[in-house]
């Protein structure tokens, strides 16, 4: 109907591939006929078969089937229409169902299914019941709803559903291919999601651009290793139950851990590191003190690491701290056209001298931010694009899809180098103790990198910062990373240099107003409205999104990214917290990650009237209390320069050092 033809009992048997495109789909049906469809694009909606169908196309669709259990009782006399009841702590949901009760379970340890492939014959099948597995849920359910004890069970149902490593479904254009789309892995909420997901995907396919930010579900977030079937099996035990688990902030997955490790992993663990996982990477989020259990205690209030992170934060602001950022995605762009290519993709001017580091965004045609990166010119023909761990694949794909006829080669150099960050007002002192190289403002100003000797190794020192202090990111070849870390750690002892984790980094960067892609900014946020217009090139060369930037400059901004400071330091804002103005007459869309310590949430301010764009920050400067003192801070709606160089440019906001001084 209306241009769609649905053909049942017809199985896809293979795909014809030409470069990065599928050109044809082969099929065979139950009467033995077979054929081929020539096509412009393909959508993988194969559900629990999606992983296998993806493999046939050379596309990674990480998901695994799990058994999902529910029972349906006999008819309960007098039962009328009831609301759905969820009791997450008992892993149960209840639904009145045509005069019966349906009781379903999301138990903490699930049963993965179909490890050796989903049977070809599967059709309205159900899996064998497992009463022992369901019994604990049923026991609590009988206690919760005593009528269950008096009612017979009409149906004991067990059926497979597919689960993804992070409990979010997969949507979008599959990395590695240019015409393969995916909508699969719905984690038990397929009916709920399908309407919206189908609508969003259709819009995306129609225009070639995401209709709005879909980062939560964009399949480009999945790392290649997550297609490993053993990994998927282990992780899927946990993801089904997570639907009804406590969703504490910073909650870490318990299964399938330790897969991507920094060269410093063991050293950091010995020093008390408590690891969090991102895209498979194990990263030190905070450091436990000697004698303190090196593990999270989750809650909605200040968690057990809060004071540790505060001390780490203070070390960065007052002294010097070391932290491991080896998980940075590192994409090398090389070739005779590298400069022209990156100038085309990036909104910033990358015709810069060798050794220059540029903070830059890749924009879509609407001026929305697709990537937020630093680009370092390593030679006339080589650049290093550094991006957050989670977005390496997405950013590399973005580059790859816009490569056109430019003579460049792209490759992922993430594993080649570890990154040790040395940050804080005394970072230069520390580096001088371990290196004869020149770290002065004259030789190595902010935004430049240099080859250095360090310990008995060689490395590249990048003078940038995401915490807003004087500091360097030391890029060191992976095999020498442990040595360089030892040298820095040893020299740092006399200076009381502190090992820091990524909770510290988050609180420091929020305090300085530095954006975090995927949290504060996304593909639906215009670069000017995100307050990042300063990063746009002044030269006239063309780049993706230029027209949209010019248009918005002319029309004026419709939204503003603003930062709020709470007057009461007690409430914690974690992520996507709504802020209501005047009891809700003017809602501010939430996009706030938690400022772990400084309590400075971000929000996007949208006002119905253009006139209010002059309102800039709707926030009057407010006061916030810091654990070590109190101070006022004026929120900045757009920092004059992100990654502000201490020592070469004045810092417009009072630093914490000043706060502590009081």
């Amino acid at each position, binding site marked *: 109907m209306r241009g769609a033809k649905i053909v049942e009992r017809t199985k896809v048997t293979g795909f014809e591939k030409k470069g990065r495109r599928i050109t044809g789909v082969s099929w065979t049906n139950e009467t033995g006929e077979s054929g081929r*469809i020539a096509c412009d694009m393909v959508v993988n909606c194969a559900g629990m078969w999606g992983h296998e169908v993806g493999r046939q196309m050379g596309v990674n669709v990480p998901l695994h089937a799990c058994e999902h259990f529910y029972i349906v009782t006999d008819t309960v006399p007098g039962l009328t229409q009831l609301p759905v009841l969820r009791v997450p702590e008992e892993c149960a949901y209840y639904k009145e169902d045509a005069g019966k009760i349906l009781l379903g379970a999301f138990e903490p340890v699930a049963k993965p299914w179909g490890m050796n492939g989903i049977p070809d014959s599967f059709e309205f099948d159900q899996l064998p019941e497992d009463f022992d597995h369901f019994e604990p849920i049923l026991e609590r359910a009988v206690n919760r709803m005593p009528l269950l004890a008096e009612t017979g069970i009409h149906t004991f149902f067990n059926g497979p559903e597919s689960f993804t490593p992070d409990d979010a479904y997969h949507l979008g254009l599959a990395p590695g291919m240019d015409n393969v789309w995916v909508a699969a892995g719905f984690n038990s909420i397929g009916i709920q999601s399908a309407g919206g997901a189908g609508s969003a995907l259709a819009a995306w396919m129609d225009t070639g651009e995401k209709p709005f930010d879909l980062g939560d579900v964009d399949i480009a977030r999945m790392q290649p290793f997550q297609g490993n079937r053993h990994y998927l099996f282990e992780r899927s035990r946990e993801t089904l139950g997570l639907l009804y688990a406590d969703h504490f902030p910073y909650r870490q997955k318990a299964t399938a851990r330790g897969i991507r490790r920094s060269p410093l992993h063991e050293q950091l663990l010995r020093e008390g590191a408590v690891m969090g996982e991102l895209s498979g990477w194990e990263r030190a989020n905070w450091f436990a003190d000697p004698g303190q259990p090196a593990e999270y205690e989750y809650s909605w209030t200040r968690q057990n690491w809060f004071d540790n992170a505060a001390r780490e934060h203070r070390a960065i602001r007052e002294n010097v701290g070391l932290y491991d950022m080896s998980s940075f995605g590192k994409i090398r762009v090389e070739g005779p056209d590298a400069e022209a290519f990156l100038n085309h993709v990036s909104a910033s001017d990358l015709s810069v001298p060798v050794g220059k580091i540029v903070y830059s965004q890749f924009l879509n045609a609407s001026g929305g931010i697709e990537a937020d990166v630093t680009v370092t010119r390593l030679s006339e023909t080589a650049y290093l694009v550094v991006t957050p761990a989670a977005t390496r694949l997405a950013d590399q794909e973005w580059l790859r899809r816009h490569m056109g006829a430019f003579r460049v080669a792209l490759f992922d150099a993430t594993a080649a180098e570890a990154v040790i960050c040395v940050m804080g007002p005394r970072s230069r002192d520390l580096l001088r103790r371990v290196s004869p190289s020149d770290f002065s403002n004259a030789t190595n100003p902010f935004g430049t990198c240099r080859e250095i000797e360090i310990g008995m190794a060689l490395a590249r020192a990048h003078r940038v910062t995401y915490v807003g202090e004087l500091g360097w990111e030391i890029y060191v070849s992976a095999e020498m990373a442990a040595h360089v870390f030892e040298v820095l750690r040893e020299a740092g002892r006399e200076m009381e240099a502190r090992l820091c984790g990524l909770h510290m980094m988050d609180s420091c960067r929020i305090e300085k107003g530095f954006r975090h892609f995927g949290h504060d900014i996304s593909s639906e946020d215009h670069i000017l409205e995100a307050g990042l217009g300063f990063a746009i090139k002044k030269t006239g060369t063309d780049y993706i999104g230029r027209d949209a930037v010019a248009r918005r400059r002319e029309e004026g901004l419709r939204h503003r990214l603003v930062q709020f400071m709470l007057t009461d330091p007690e409430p914690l804002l974690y992520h996507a917290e709504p802020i209501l103005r005047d009891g809700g007459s003017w809602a501010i869309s939430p996009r706030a990650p938690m400022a772990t310590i400084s309590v400075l949430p971000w929000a996007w301010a949208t006002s119905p009237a253009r006139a209010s764009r002059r309102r800039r920050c709707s926030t009057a400067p407010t006061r916030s209390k810091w654990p070590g003192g109190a101070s006022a801070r004026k929120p900045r709606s757009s920092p004059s320069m992100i990654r502000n160089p201490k020592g070469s440019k004045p810092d417009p906001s009072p630093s914490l050092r000043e706060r502590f001084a009081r």
Partner: protein
Amino acid sequence: MALPPEQARVVIVGGGVIGCSVAYHLTQLGWRDVVLLERKQLTSGTTWHAAGLIAQLRATKNMTRLAKYSQELYGRLEAETGVATGFRRNGSITVALSEARREEILRQASMARASASRSRRSAPPSSRPATRMSMSRTSRRRFISTRTAKAIRPTSRWRWPRARRCAARRSSSAPR
């Protein structure tokens, strides 16, 4: 047996609720030559046995927006197609048994209030129910009743999955 065409603009592999939704929405946008291939029968993998609860509230604004659209779409399918869907708006109750869970639910509720006020500002009256979400009783939606699970099929007729009913009968014999 109907055969697929030799050429298509897009081939959708899989006829569950999402494959059908993608096909539906592409044609809404005016696409033609959309082909959906299903190895057995529509919905016969996972969709057919879904409990069909349709909550609107998700962790972020855009995910909430998509879930909300789902229930709006399902709510109007019957009028659009003339086929009964069994869709009912029952609401839901989520119970907290601990302080931590209570906190989580309260935070969700504030998100619900925010999206409600957003819809009041910008959405047509059809999304009004969302404004009635409150912290303990959020406005949730349900779709296909599992006891009367119907194949989701954007064609002019709806079909009862025979195998599903047989399966239910088989298992009803002797639950332990």
